[in-house]
C-alpha cells in the first residue's frame, strides 16, 4: 500500500543504438561527449562526485541541475541524483548488449504526483516556461 504522499512516478525512455556498449558508455561518461548530447557539465564517473549540468538560464531559474554520482558499473549502468528547481530525482542509465548494438534504458525516478499539479508559480516562475511556447504550438497542428 502506498499513500498518495509517498507514491512516486518515473519517466522511462528506451532506445536501441547500433553501437557497442563501450561506445555508448563513453558518450554517457565523457564530459565533452555528454555536453554534445545532454548538457554542459563537469561530470566524472566517480561515485560520490558532485557535478552540475547547465542549460541556458530562464527567468527565475539559473539553469543549473545539481547532481551527484550514485553508482558506476562500467558499460552496464550509471546513476546520479538530479536536482532541479527544488525537485530531486534520480537518473539511471542501464546498458544491455544486443545482437546489433546496445539497448539503452533511462529511468528518471522520484517524481511525486503533486509536483506538476501543485504548481508553485512564485517558486518556478511560469514566464520562463512560456518563453518559446509559440514554437511548441506551431508544431501542434
Amino acid at each position, binding site marked *: 500500500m502506498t499513500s498518495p504522499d509517498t507514491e512516486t512516478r518515473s519517466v*522511462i*525512455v528506451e532506445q536501441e543504438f547500433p553501437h557497442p556498449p563501450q561506445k555508448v558508455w563513453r558518450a554517457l561518461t565523457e564530459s565533452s561527449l555528454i555536453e554534445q*548530447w*545532454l548538457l554542459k557539465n563537469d561530470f566524472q564517473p566517480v561515485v560520490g562526485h558532485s557535478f552540475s549540468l547547465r542549460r541556458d538560464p530562464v527567468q527565475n531559474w539559473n539553469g543549473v541541475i545539481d547532481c551527484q554520482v550514485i553508482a558506476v558499473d562500467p558499460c552496464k549502468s550509471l546513476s546520479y541524483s538530479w536536482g532541479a528547481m527544488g525537485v530531486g530525482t534520480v537518473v539511471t542509465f542501464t546498458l544491455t548488449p544486443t545482437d546489433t548494438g546496445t539497448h539503452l534504458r533511462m529511468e*528518471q525516478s522520484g517524481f511525486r504526483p503533486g509536483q506538476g499539479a501543485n504548481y508553485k*508559480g512564485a517558486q518556478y516562475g511560469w*514566464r520562463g*516556461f512560456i518563453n518559446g511556447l509559440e514554437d511548441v504550438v506551431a508544431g501542434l497542428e
Partner: protein
Amino acid sequence: MPSAANSLFRALADPTRRAIFERLARDGDLTVHALTDRAGVSQPMVSKHLSALKRARLVRNRRKGRETHYHARPEALAPLVDWIGDYGVFWRDKFDRLADVLDRLEDVDERNAK
C-alpha cells in the same frame, strides 16, 4: 495531448493574450476597461481574448456593480507545467542527439583505424 492542455497552449500562444494574462497575474483584479487602456487593442478584441483565456480557465470573471472584473488563475497553468515536467519529452530529444553523437564517434574511430 489532452484537450485541456491544447486549449491552454493555444490561449497562451497569442502574445496579446499572454500580456493580458501576465498583467492580471501581476496586478490582480482588473476591469475590461483597465485592461484595454494598456493592451494596445480595442475593447472588443480584449473581450475576445478574455473569452479565450476563460475557456482555458486561465482567468475568471465576476460582476462587481456595473463592471466585470477579471483575475488570473495561475493554477490553471498546471497542465503546461506537467507537460514540461514530463521529462519524457526532454529525454527523447536528448536520445536523438545521443544517436548523432554515437554516429559521429564511429566516424572518428573508423578514420583513426585507417
